[in-house]
């Protein structure tokens, strides 16, 4: 059997396959991975009209949908049905794509392994003893499992790219502001950006074409024209300058990962790209800066869950403060509490300058590093992750070890840049990801490079042992 792509789905549809029924059967067959929180059986689906007409897909369960509950992987929102649709939900529906469910995720998108979900962990289709990555773990696993051709995700510190790398599929995180955040449950608002996970860069380009664009309902959505991403696919990489950032190939990155990603980059070199060494000297400080800024924003964003207007409400509260404190204690999991308390600490009187303000200054240094590098190169490259997918439970006792694994992805969010993880080969039978980082709003060049690589290699089409055949 073949990997599901938009092209294979369209061909199957033309040959008479009922794509919706097929996807629902595939979802049942892959149910053991626990990649979906909600499986839907949409009725009355139109298969005509729209760029993605009739193509089944799933939304990460933090995009608000009026037709399905939106849990955000949390007990807090276990029964929450949104009174409105997210902008990208509307856009994908208008394109004719058919949502068959909502993907499992780390609670409120906080995590790198999908082990923080109130609905249980997701298993990696390549090895069910391993994590699929997070926080968009369900989205990556459901694509890798060959259930749907694409899934939406969100990326605050690597949550699209890291699970895509762990599951051997392509994950695209657009420039901050390129895709509307309206109706996407907020974690860290200056870092959050919606993205897409699919088999190929070409499929990500088609889906992003539908998702991207200005939205007056999101004040941080940027009003500038959206490139023609499909036109960028075949531009070729001849003469394209790709910077290999020394810090992305640091000592913390396993040797086999460095070698595998270098080999993938040599494919781009063979296609005409020019590889040059560059430095991003402040990148090692991106983890501490991220773990100040993201929790600070989270502690503020998650203040809205108070048991009054929607979400979990504690029973028999003895007063208003008791209602707030117990509703939140009962509704949130451990990692969410950890980040709320951390954010509260770094924003509290006496610590603001030492932590939050300083982290924002380091954020500027990181953005300046990228700006300097992009004066000389078109893209920046490195491994998406220091190692392949780790085992379930391996890092749960040590939050810092889990955070450290985000070292190659968080800087991109701090700077607000677009980036993509593309399959780059295998290490001991497990997928490795190559991360390509672009200039702000230059998604097109990422698609060009990703498509050039995938025209020469077939790692992105390899089927996991746990994939539906």
């Amino acid at each position: 059997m073949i990997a599901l792509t938009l092209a294979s789905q369209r061909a199957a549809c033309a040959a008479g396959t009922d794509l919706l029924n097929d996807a629902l059967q595939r979802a049942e067959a892959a149910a053991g991975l626990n990649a979906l929180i909600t499986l839907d059986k949409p009725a009355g689906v139109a298969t005509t009209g729209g760029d993605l007409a009739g193509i089944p897909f799933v939304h990460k369960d933090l995009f608000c949908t009026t037709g399905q509950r939106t849990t955000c992987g949390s007990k807090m929102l276990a029964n929450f049905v949104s009174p409105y649709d997210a902008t990208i939900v509307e856009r994908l529906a208008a394109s004719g794509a058919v949502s068959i469910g909502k993907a499992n995720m780390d609670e409120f998108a906080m995590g790198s392994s999908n082990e923080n979900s109130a609905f249980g962990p997701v298993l990696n289709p390549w090895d069910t003893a391993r994590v699929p990555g997070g926080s968009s773990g369900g989205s990556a696993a459901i694509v890798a499992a060959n259930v749907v051709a694409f899934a939406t995700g969100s990326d605050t510190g690597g949550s699209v790219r890291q699970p895509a790398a762990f599951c051997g599929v392509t994950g695209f995180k657009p420039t901050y502001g390129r895709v509307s955040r309206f109706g996407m449950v907020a974690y860290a608002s200056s870092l959050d950006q919606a993205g897409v996970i699919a088999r190929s860069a070409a499929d990500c380009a088609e889906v992003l074409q539908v998702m991207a664009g200005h939205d007056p309902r999101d004040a941080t959505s940027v009003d500038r024209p959206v490139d023609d991403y499909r036109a960028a696919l075949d531009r070729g990489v001849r003469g394209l300058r790709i910077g290999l950032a020394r810090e992305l190939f640091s000592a913390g990155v396993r040797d086999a990962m460095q070698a595998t990603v270098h080999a993938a980059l040599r494919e781009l070199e063979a296609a005409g790209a020019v590889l040059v060494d560059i430095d991003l000297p402040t990148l090692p400080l991106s983890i501490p800066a991220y773990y100040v800024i993201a929790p600070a924003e989270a502690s503020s964003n998650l203040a809205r869950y108070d048991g009054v207007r929607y979400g979990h409400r504690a029973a028999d509260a003895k007063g208003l403060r008791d209602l707030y404190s117990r509703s939140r204690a009962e509704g949130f999991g451990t990692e969410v509490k950890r980040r709320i308390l951390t954010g509260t600490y770094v924003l509290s009187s006496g610590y603001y300058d030492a932590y939050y303000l300083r982290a924002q200054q380091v954020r500027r240094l990181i953005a300046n590093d990228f700006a300097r590098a992009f004066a000389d190169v078109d893209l920046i490259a490195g491994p998406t992750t220091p190692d392949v997918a780790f085992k379930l439970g391996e890092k749960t006792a040590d939050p810092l070890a889990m955070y450290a694994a985000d070292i190659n992805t968080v800087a991109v969010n701090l700077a607000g840049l677009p980036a993509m993880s593309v399959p780059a080969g295998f290490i001991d039978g497990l997928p490795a990801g190559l991360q390509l980082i672009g200039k702000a709003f230059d998604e097109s060049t990422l698609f060009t490079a990703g498509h050039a690589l995938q025209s020469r290699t077939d790692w992105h089409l390899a089927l996991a042992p746990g994939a539906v055949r």
Partner: protein
Amino acid sequence: MAIETAQLHRLAHLARLDLPTAEEVRLAHDLDALLGLIAQLQNAPVDGVRPMAHPHEVAATLRPDRVSESDRSAALEGIAPEMQSGLFLVPKVIE
């Protein structure tokens, strides 16, 4: 730096989070470790560096001052845990 119990209680109070005693030791330990991690920022060369709160420096967009939303109160009431006569119910605040 070690987070003391009183400090953890203060944070929990500010965050409106009820912390079961059983979770306190673990959370204090985790916060200590995290503060150790973010202490790396103290050596960063940030003198004179303008803080960056947001990826793009764009001015807030303006829109025409006209009604754009319809009355959604019925839909919003439908998802509230406890409502009465269009009001969100909370426990008694004044005795």
